[in-house]
């Protein structure tokens, strides 16, 4: 769902840049306060992993492919939506500048959709669902699915405002495709959480761990 430069007027891209920069600033402040040398390896590996996974488009039927976004995964593992803003911003910057995946003037919109909306939706829906169900995999799967679909719907609205997509057709197509892509997002998110928890439970946010382990950690 990387919006290219061609899909949005520069002035609208500038507005999303300004909004995104507020969250980027807050994410830098979060990183400065929360990230220490102990968490550095996990954050750097997550950045590399998200970049690689975003380059891997899987077929999702209907002549369409999709890849992991990763906002929910990062926010859940590191215990903050600002973690998603931080890592997605740097991944989207590398993608946009070096590989032309997502535009430059639209990078603010992409950060806003995938980093901010994806991170906040993923983190808080996981938190609420985990409290309600007690199940990490169920909560993470649904949170990741939502963190894929809702940013896609935001992109559809932005592209309607940009005059690129009609509202209804954009919402239907973006919603349908990302509802399917979201299943891939959910499966990969749950698998990645299990993998990271199994190798470094000490680095993972306590909210991810089972209640007993979280109390001990």
């Amino acid at each position, binding site marked *: *769902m*990387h919006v*290219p*430069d*061609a*899909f949005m007027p*520069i002035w609208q*891209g500038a507005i999303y840049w300004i909004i995104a920069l507020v969250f980027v600033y807050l994410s830098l402040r979060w*990183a*400065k306060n929360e*990230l220490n*040398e102990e968490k*550095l*390896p*996990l*954050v*750097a*590996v997550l950045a*590399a*992993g*998200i*970049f*690689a996974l975003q*380059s*891997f*488009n899987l*077929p999702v039927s*209907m*002549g*369409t*492919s999709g*890849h992991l976004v990763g906002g929910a995964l990062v926010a859940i593992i590191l215990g903050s939506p600002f973690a998603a803003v931080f*890592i997605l911003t*740097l*991944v989207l*910057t*590398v993608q*946009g*500048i*070096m*590989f*032309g*995946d997502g*535009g*430059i*003037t639209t990078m603010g919109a992409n950060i806003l959709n995938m980093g901010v909306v994806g991170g906040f939706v993923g983190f808080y829906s996981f938190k609420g669902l985990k409290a309600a169900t007690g199940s990490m995999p169920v909560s993470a799967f649904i949170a990741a699915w939502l963190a894929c679909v809702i940013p*896609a719907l935001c992109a559809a609205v932005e592209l309607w405002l940009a005059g690129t*997509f*009609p509202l209804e*057709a*954009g919402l*239907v*197509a*973006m919603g*349908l*495709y990302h509802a399917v892509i979201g299943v891939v997002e959910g499966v990969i998110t749950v698998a990645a959480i299990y993998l990271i928890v199994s*190798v*470094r*439970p*000490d680095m993972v946010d306590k909210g991810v761990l089972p209640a007993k382990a979280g109390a001990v950690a």
Partner: protein
Amino acid sequence: MIDNKTLIVGGLIIAVLIGVVAVFFASSDPDGLESTALIIQGGKTLTGPTPPDAEILENMDGKFAYLAPMPDYSLGEESGPGGGILAIVGGTLLAFLVAIGLIYVLRVAGKKGPPKANQ
């Protein structure tokens, strides 16, 4: 539990392997946003396959144009899969290094900043 060195080396190996596999096995179908653009432009139907010659029309009037050094995660068609692997491995390592560099700068800046009581 594994140590930090194993986490970094193992994590990077997995990331690079995903990137290399992506070069050979990633779907050539458009992503969700591109598919939506094709529908709007009449290039495909909502649930139908994407025609091989489908192309997204981009109106660049009044838009910012930027040519990335490695567009579409490749070094150009003539470089083949090897160029794709180099591009993705380079990007993966770049994301890793940018993350480390940024956190390091933030930590150094945090330590050298004026005490909060004086602000």
